[in-house]
Structures are given as structure tokens and as C-alpha cells.
């Protein structure tokens, strides 16, 4: 397993499926979302993820939500990922988006063995300060 995997919370939710083939492995959507979310925020130029009302309330309540702003659709072997994010002012969006797509695809494929068919990027805002994450 990729050494990075030890740092990801939620990876213990990966478990074997009881029904059907005893060797089949079902990976939870949440696990893929956390891997993608952490990989995306590591890219230079990404200020943070944009999670909507539920994500905001969760963070106000003090819970760190690593899958915030990530929507995944996991199939048998394929996974499609949508990332909703806020980009730092000055960063070139096409370049940041390409790096995020590559980093997320690599992280998810290495850690889960799933085939990432697409990583769609939704840039919802631009932040102008180091600490701000919600746009202007």
C-alpha cells in the first residue's frame, strides 16, 4: 500500500463484502472522497474545498470534514469524482485544475486500486487572503 495511506482517516472502513465472491472488496464512497479531498488540498493554489450548507454547519460544529466538497460515484471498478473548490488569488486555474486532477487520480488509484475515469473540477470561488476560504 502507498505509505501515504497511513495518514488518511477513514481507510479502516474498507472491508470485504460478505455476499458473492469472498475476495471481492467494496470500498466506501466516503473513503474515496477523503482520499480525493486530502490529495486535492495538497496542491499549491488550492485554498480549500467548498462544501455547501451541510459542510459549513459541520465545520461550525467543530468537526473536521475531510470529504467536504467531494462527490464520488463508485462503480464496480471505476470511479468518477467531482471536486468543488476555492482557488487562491494569483494561481492559474487551468494549471491548478490539471495538477489536482493528476494528483487525485494518482492517489485514488494507488490507494484503492479503482480506475478513475474522470476528475471534474468545479472552481466556485477565489480567495484573496491566506486564511480566507470563501471568495471575495
Amino acid at each position, binding site marked *: 500500500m502507498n505509505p501515504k495511506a497511513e495518514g488518511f482517516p477513514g481507510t479502516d472502513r474498507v472491508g470485504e463484502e460478505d455476499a458473492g465472491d469472498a475476495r471481492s472488496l467494496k470500498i466506501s464512497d466516503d473513503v474515496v472522497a477523503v482520499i480525493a479531498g486530502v490529495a486535492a488540498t495538497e496542491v499549491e493554489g488550492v485554498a480549500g474545498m*467548498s462544501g*455547501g*450548507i451541510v459542510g*459549513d*454547519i459541520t465545520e461550525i460544529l467543530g468537526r473536521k470534514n475531510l470529504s467536504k466538497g467531494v462527490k464520488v460515484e463508485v462503480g464496480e471498478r471505476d470511479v468518477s*469524482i467531482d471536486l468543488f473548490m476555492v*482557488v487562491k*488569488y*494569483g*494561481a*492559474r*486555474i*487551468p494549471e491548478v*485544475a*490539471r495538477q489536482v*486532477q*493528476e494528483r487525485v*487520480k494518482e492517489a485514488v488509484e494507488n490507494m484503492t486500486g479503482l480506475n478513475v475515469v*474522470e*476528475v*471534474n*473540477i*468545479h*472552481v*466556485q*470561488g*477565489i480567495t*484573496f487572503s491566506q486564511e480566507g476560504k*470563501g*471568495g*471575495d
Partner: protein
Amino acid sequence: MEIGDRVLLAVFAGGLVVHFGMTFLSMVGWAVPGKIIASIEKSPEGRTAISVVAFAFLLLSVRFFILTFRRKYGSKAVAHQGPLGEVRVYLGAIENLVKRVCRQVPGVREVKAHISNVGDSVSVFVRCSVSPDVSIPDLTRDLQKTVQTYVKNVVGVEVNEVKMVVENITTESKKSRGSAV
């Protein structure tokens, strides 16, 4: 905030003023509000009317609560397809970017921007206030060039046109408004 929400907010605030005003006056000894409420409570029609108004205010409260969490950017976006997936940049984000870029140009005081997308490209409409000591034709030409170049480089989309309206000539920025020339 949309104009409809502004009207609702005005109604909501007006209702709260009346409600708490009456409550305050009752608490300091004015008996009339209490008598009015007592007479309304006696009739079924009065109770129904009060229930309807209370329910409407409850709905308005929920609406404004949700509005406080709603994102400023809308749902419209400009998209381009890459080899690993689609990249969508929301027009609200581009709008904030344009405002920021315009404010950095010397001579520009206040800026409002509106972005509309036409296929894979965008049109930018900027309304601004400028200092009295600048040449407006030169400034607007610089602004158009700057916005076009910046949006192209940073967002990666073509800019069809940059329309500009100089609304005012002012010596003050928005924070200390008051002395328009």
C-alpha cells in the same frame, strides 16, 4: 441578495419592529396592546389570522437562515473539457477576480462587475467610479486590456468583450463615501 429577498427582508424587519415595539410598550405599562391581543384571541377568526401571520414569519425566518449560508456565486459556469475531466469555473469567481484586478489599476475607486458566458468564452461588463485626475479614455483602455489578459491567463477562457461604464468621478473610495465630483 435578490430584489425579492430585499422586499421580504423589509417586511420581516417591519414586522419585528411592530412586534417588539408592542411588547416593549406592554412591559412598560401601556395596556392597549394587551387588550388588542386579548380581543383577537377571543375570536376564532382572530386566532386563525394570528396563526397565519406567525407561520409566514416562521417561513421567512427559515428563508433568511438558509440565505446566511448560501454561496455568493451562482450556478452558471464556463466549462472546458480536459483529458482527465471537465473543469468548470463559476461566473461568480470570475466576477470577484475581475473586481479585484480592476481595483488594482491606479485611478479606479469602485468597481461592479457582471460576467456572462457565451459558449466557452465570457463577456465582461464593468461599471466603475474613477478618480478625477485620470484620463478616462486611457484608463478604460488599460482596464479593458488588463481584464482581458488577466482572465485569459488566469481562468483560461477567451474574453469576447469587455464593456465599461464609468458611473461616477469621485475622490473617495467606497469606505468613506460622500464627496462625488
